[in-house]
């Protein structure tokens, strides 16, 4: 089916039925990609975007893990922090941008922070939910064995929350890609988002399509890696816990 669509698209474009200024032919997009690869522009753009994403992901996932774990483990921390986090969540994420730019400038820091905000929420929510929703029946097993709160957290709640946490990380990564694209569109001197913006400004849709394609491929790639890592993590949990 995708191959058929591609052939149809190429056929229509080749026959001159699709004006190149609207939808350039696949061949042209491919040629653009090859040119970008040869000039080193592609590697440079992917590198810039991936580095923003990576820093933002680490920052957002770490904060989400620490706060989610804290609120999950301690009802007190949860009562104090969770309402705040929930109210921040209702702010549309892109609305943070002006504030970040005022605080952190227009360069890397504000972009990375925006990505981190995107990554934070799914990680935080999934970990907290995972810990809070552990089956009461399993918790009672700890209770009849006289577990302390710490032991209950380590031996029951955290392992039981792991699958939800892994899902949160994966969702966070997906949102991270969305937010890095947004951050770069809003003003960057390099990166895949910059190529998008630049293609639009200079009226070259083949560059826009090439950048979109690269976003898609990279996003899918990291998601696949993350999913495999997650499966590995849960499988290890199944078999190798002391």
């Amino acid at each position: 089916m995708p191959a058929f669509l591609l052939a149809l698209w190429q056929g229509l474009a080749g026959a001159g039925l699709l004006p190149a200024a609207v939808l350039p032919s696949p061949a042209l997009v491919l040629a653009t990609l090859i040119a970008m690869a040869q000039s080193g522009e592609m590697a440079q753009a992917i590198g810039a975007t991936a580095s923003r994403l990576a820093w933002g992901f680490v920052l957002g996932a770490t904060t989400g893990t620490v706060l989610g774990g804290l609120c999950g483990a301690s009802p007190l921390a949860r009562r104090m922090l969770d309402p705040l986090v929930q109210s921040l969540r209702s702010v549309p994420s892109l609305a943070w941008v002006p504030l970040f730019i005022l605080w952190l400038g227009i360069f890397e820091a504000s972009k990375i922070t925006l990505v981190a905000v995107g990554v934070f929420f799914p990680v935080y929510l999934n970990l907290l939910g995972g810990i809070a929703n552990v089956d009461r029946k399993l918790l009672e097993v700890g209770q009849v064995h006289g577990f302390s709160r710490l032991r209950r957290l380590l031996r029951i709640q955290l392992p039981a929350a792991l699958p939800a946490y892994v899902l949160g990380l994966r969702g966070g990564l997906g949102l991270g890609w969305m937010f890095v694209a947004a951050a770069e569109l809003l003003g960057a001197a390099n990166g895949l988002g910059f190529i998008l913006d630049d293609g639009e400004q200079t009226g070259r849709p083949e560059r826009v399509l090439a950048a979109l394609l690269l976003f898609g491929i990279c996003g899918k790639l990291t998601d696949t890696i993350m999913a495999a890592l997650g499966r590995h993590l849960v499988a290890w949990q199944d078999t190798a816990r002391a």
Partner: protein
Amino acid sequence: MPYALDITDLEKSYGESRVLGPINLHLTPGTITAIIGRSGCGKTTLLRCLGGLETPTSGGIKVGDGNVRQRDIGYVFQEPRLMPWLSVAKNTAFGLKGIKRQARDEAVAEALKLVGLTEAAGLLPKQLSGGMAQRVALARALAPRPALILLDEPFSALDPFTREQMQDHLLHLHGYYGATMVMITHDMDEALALAQRVIVLNGAPGKVIGDFTPDLPRPAARTSMAFFNWKRRITEVLSDRPAHRLSA
């Protein structure tokens, strides 16, 4: 040392409705007591109170001298409740703490041998049948060698053959380390084969309506006349129920 169990004026209500009590019972250390009664009559609630999982609305429970640590009580739930991320061996070791690795491994091996699951030590819960899972749950409760063991219909999910085998295991176990055991069952044969004392509960709210001390040899010959007579006497107390099987 097995514990005595003293239950005085125990009552449990959920909201306005009393589901249990008042109940007064004294259980002798080292004995097996079976509790039978119809579905919903409060058997599980009683056991949960004894195990510290529910706080009685009023009345008292005294286990041993009253200073018993939670970990000296073993509890087998109606469902296996295994940790899905742990192997059979690690599930069995779940309640063991503060002991050396070697002692732990020995306790696990012994408990698994007792329930006939030595071969399954490395399997995950998702790879077990219902009956196997319930045997792991039993092994988990036995491994710490508790002085009081509370069992909520532990064998009702097992096939008849495995059930009898497990009953024999339990008697054997009781014979050589002598914990006090309280066991809920809906199987009159099981109650009579294992227990020195059979308590019959009646529902809404749950009260003791029968208290029997069958003096059968153990393991009791299930086909003997004495066995059959006790069965009839107890069934009479449960009146309009079919002869030998009482639903949980």
